[in-house]
């Protein structure tokens, strides 16, 4: 067992699950989406991105790309949330919340691709 692989798999999976958890629930209802969960998703996604730095294989490059997409989408979601709750006069309304959740939905797609890549990599490694 390779500890590096464990840590890598852990963060990739955790990024996807946190993202999924935040995405669950009615899109426009702020009550159903926890800000700490979004924060955790951003942080874990950033860590997963850094873990993918410096891999010169083809699959490593795609890994990095998906993680960058997910991180950017989640950071965008966090920015929209901050704008809604701190700047906008109307406060956190349903429209803003829907934007946040749909952005995190996009990130979720990228995270799913990441997990698929992880599985593909693992399976093809065992075949050899």
């Amino acid at each position: 067992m390779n500890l590096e692989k464990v840590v890598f798999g852990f963060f990739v999976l955790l990024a996807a699950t946190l993202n999924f958890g935040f995405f669950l629930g009615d899109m426009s209802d702020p009550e159903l989406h926890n800000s700490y969960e979004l924060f955790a998703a951003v942080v874990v996604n950033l860590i997963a991105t850094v873990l993918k730095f410096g891999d010169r294989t083809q699959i490593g490059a795609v890994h990095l790309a998906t993680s960058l997409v997910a991180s950017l989408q989640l950071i965008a979601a966090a920015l929209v949330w901050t704008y809604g709750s701190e700047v906008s006069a109307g406060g956190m309304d349903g429209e803003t919340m829907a934007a946040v959740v749909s952005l995190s939905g996009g990130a979720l797609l990228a995270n799913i691709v990441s997990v698929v890549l992880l599985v593909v990599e693992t399976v093809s490694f065992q075949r050899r």
Partner: protein
Amino acid sequence: MSSPVSSQTSNLPVVETRRPSTGILLVLRRMRTPIIVLIGIFALSTVGLTLVPGEDPQGNPHRLSIFEAFYFMAYTASTIGFGELPYPFTPAQRLWVTVSIFMAVTGWAYAIGSLLSLMQDRAFRAALARRHFVNKVRHLGEPFLVLVGYGNATRSLARSLDEMGRRFVVVDDDEERIAGVELDAYRADSPALLGNARDTEVMALAGAAHPRCEGVVALTGDDDTNLDVAMTVGLLRPGLPVIARTSSRDIADRMELFGASEVVNPLDRFGDHLRILLRSPASYQLMVWLTSSPGSPLPPRRDPLPTGRWVVSGDGRFGRELTEDLRAEGIEVDLVGGGHPDSTSDSVQAGDLDAEHLQGAVAFVAATESDMTNLWLLRTAQQMNPDLFLVALQNRASNARLYESAGVDFGMLPAELIVHEVLARLANPELMQFLPRVPHMGEEWSDAMVERLVSAGGDGAPDLWRIVLDQREAPGVQHWLSDGHLTLSDLLRDPHDRDHALHIVPLVHVRDEEGTIAPEPELLLEPGDVLLLAAPASARRTLADTLAHPSTAAYVVEDRVVPSSWVWRKLTRTSL
């Protein structure tokens, strides 16, 4: 599937080279841990700060939002410190912030420290330098040479090439020498690669497979390296000129087998130079001058070498060859030391030299490959017969002063010989038609030629350049060329006043691959002829006018003033 077209059009081999993007990858890889630590610390302190209870000035409970906490941590951790926002903190919050500050500062120190130590890492710097080099070579837009090794010979070759405006790339496996390339401050940007030229990949990186590469010059002191380079290039790019140095016949044969276009053997050349000097000091002077870098002063003419009995003392094979060379010139030669065919040792022994040999001899040649042995031989010979003319093969440039104080009359540095030789070949292939014939032309001819060159361009070695009298290089004179009325002397008249001739000395005229040296002024030129000319740079520019503009050419050739614009020509009813 391979298409026949592509295999015909591109004869450049595809050499797989690892794209040296290692630099940035290495940074990313090594910075993983520090960056994750930083992210972790930030996340922990931010979340912690939102959880710690605080209150506003009215005493109502108030917790920081994630954004406010992140903002606070961002400026606190980077030691900017705007104060406690939005309200003064409670003791509980301050307690947490204290902990966070220590964590964050440690995290930053760790990250920045890692980055700095990475910058000083040898492997990292080497990777960066290599990447830089490859980029430079890839974007070279002009023809360039690959110089292998950066020893004395290559260095002075590089300086001359730079003066001639040629581009080159240097490969050497010695770090100090590579650093030396930068210190030597060439006019053109000269990329230098640290690496062993015997490695095919290194040669490919250095540009041997680059379409603009016009040749490879391997002048290292190590025959094996030179041979490897010649073979590698011969296999990678058949037909690419390779100039390689060796002092062994055997290796020279192998180099030629792999298509090395020129093999330079400094020891052979030593013999050649002695022969030329014996025949005609003026020819020798002319040849050395023409092969030195542009602007070098005219070397002094040497006195004729003494004829009589010579004594040669040298290492086995070389001593024998030199002896044969000299005997071929009709000189009586005694070979001392190293010449015993059955001797196991090639070097000269202490007892080899005796007074008997040196009595009545006129000259003594010390030609071993060790400077110390040479100096010792010279001193011994001088003691036995003080009137001897002393000739020495000087191996290291740094020992030149020792030879000088030993009273050597004629010394030659192999490095110097090589540079002259290689330079002549690289600068002008036509010059190689000229030089070998000079010794056969005799003393008077050479003397007159030196006089002509000096009166044309002064004491500095003239610029040598070739012109091809075709549509591309000489569009201005095509009209007269095709009529067959253009003589060489007409072409070389001054466009400012055609009664004067330009200060240009024609050295070689080539027609249908047949070269004539020092062509007559009355020679009728034909389209496609090639001329090798020697002149100062100003005359070169003036001649370029004649070659390019038909109206200038009309004045120079026929003494007619032809308007240069089409309209005016029609108005004045003149034509070319």
